[in-house]
């Protein structure tokens, strides 16, 4: 299998099973891209999350373009981004054309009542693995806690958290040197 086909199939698969927004696919993407294909290391994967979160555009698409780009330059990036979007476009087109009553279907609703808690668990699960890989120690373990608190309790935008932490890391790097 050619590398472009491989990139396309991997991200189309991830795109097809992304329910409930970009964060839900973090776990799946890590499994496919880091564990299975070994296109990135765990650290590189986390850096990709940072970049995708702090640039405009859709989270899932940003992730796919960055990873594709890393593998095969701009063409790899285009393939990754398109592959993530294609399943979504096809599904919605079919619904718009044929299944206007899709969302009112009892069985669809039942399936989704089961899937929704699962999606929340899928978002939470990678946190614990990543805590280890982010090299959390007793000196920096306050960073994720404060970040989560600021976002959940005070409604601070994640962009601000990343900006402030980025500037902090920059200054800290300078001071240490």
């Amino acid at each position: 299998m050619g590398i472009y086909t491989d990139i396309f199939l991997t991200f189309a698969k991830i795109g097809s099973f992304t329910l409930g927004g970009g964060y839900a696919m973090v776990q799946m993407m890590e499994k496919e891209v880091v564990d299975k294909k070994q296109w990135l290391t765990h650290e590189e994967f986390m850096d990709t999350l940072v970049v995708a979160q702090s640039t405009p555009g859709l989270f899932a698409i940003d992730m796919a373009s960055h990873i594709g780009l890393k593998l095969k330059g701009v063409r790899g990036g285009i393939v990754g981004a398109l592959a993530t979007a294609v399943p979504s476009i096809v599904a919605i087109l079919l619904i718009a054309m044929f299944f206007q009553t899709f969302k009112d279907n009892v069985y669809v609703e039942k399936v989704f009542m089961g899937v929704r808690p699962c999606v929340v668990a899928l978002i939470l699960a990678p946190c614990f693995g990543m805590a280890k890989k982010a090299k959390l120690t007793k000196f920096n373990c306050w960073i994720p806690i404060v970040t989560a608190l600021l976002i959940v309790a005070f409604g601070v935008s994640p962009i601000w958290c990343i900006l402030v932490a980025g500037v902090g890391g920059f200054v800290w790097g300078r001071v240490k040197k």
Partner: protein
Amino acid sequence: MIFLELFYVFSKIGIFNFGGGYAMLSLIQDEVVNKHGWMTVNEFTDIVAISQSTPGPIGINCATYTGYTAVVHAGYPTWMAVLGAILASLSVVWLPFILMVSISKFLIKHHESKVVTSVFATLRPVIVGLLAAAALMLMSKENFGSPTDSTFVFVVSVVLFFFAFVGTRLYKVHPIIMILLCGLAGLVIY
């Protein structure tokens, strides 16, 4: 010209979308419902519900559906509407993509530099916090039901949540398998 308008509006929505799909919903509503009248408020609510139960990024879902409906409402045939849907979806993506390419290229080139290394070392713990926050905010009535309205739904949801968490975390079950299992469980139990 409806196609030019779709291209312009969704390019704008794409580039101003920071922080994920849900953040862009109010922006989309303002453009699509209030300013251009491409769909009614009810149709917009429908598309949000559909987006939540179909795969893919919610921004793409909205763009595809809006592109299709807007062209149909303008009186064009179905195949033109399909083109409109594809055009709107790609419009959301292209500007952020170019930006992402420039940033990625810069980072890949400078990833050994001291400054970039130290910035990312600080940002990794932040990402852990971001994911935790996203999960916490989704532990809502919409996703789990409420213990007072329907104790049964709530208990089943909590059980499925722990089942999915333990399964993916400890037993390394593939997330796709997990989603299918939980969907099947919902179909059987409810």
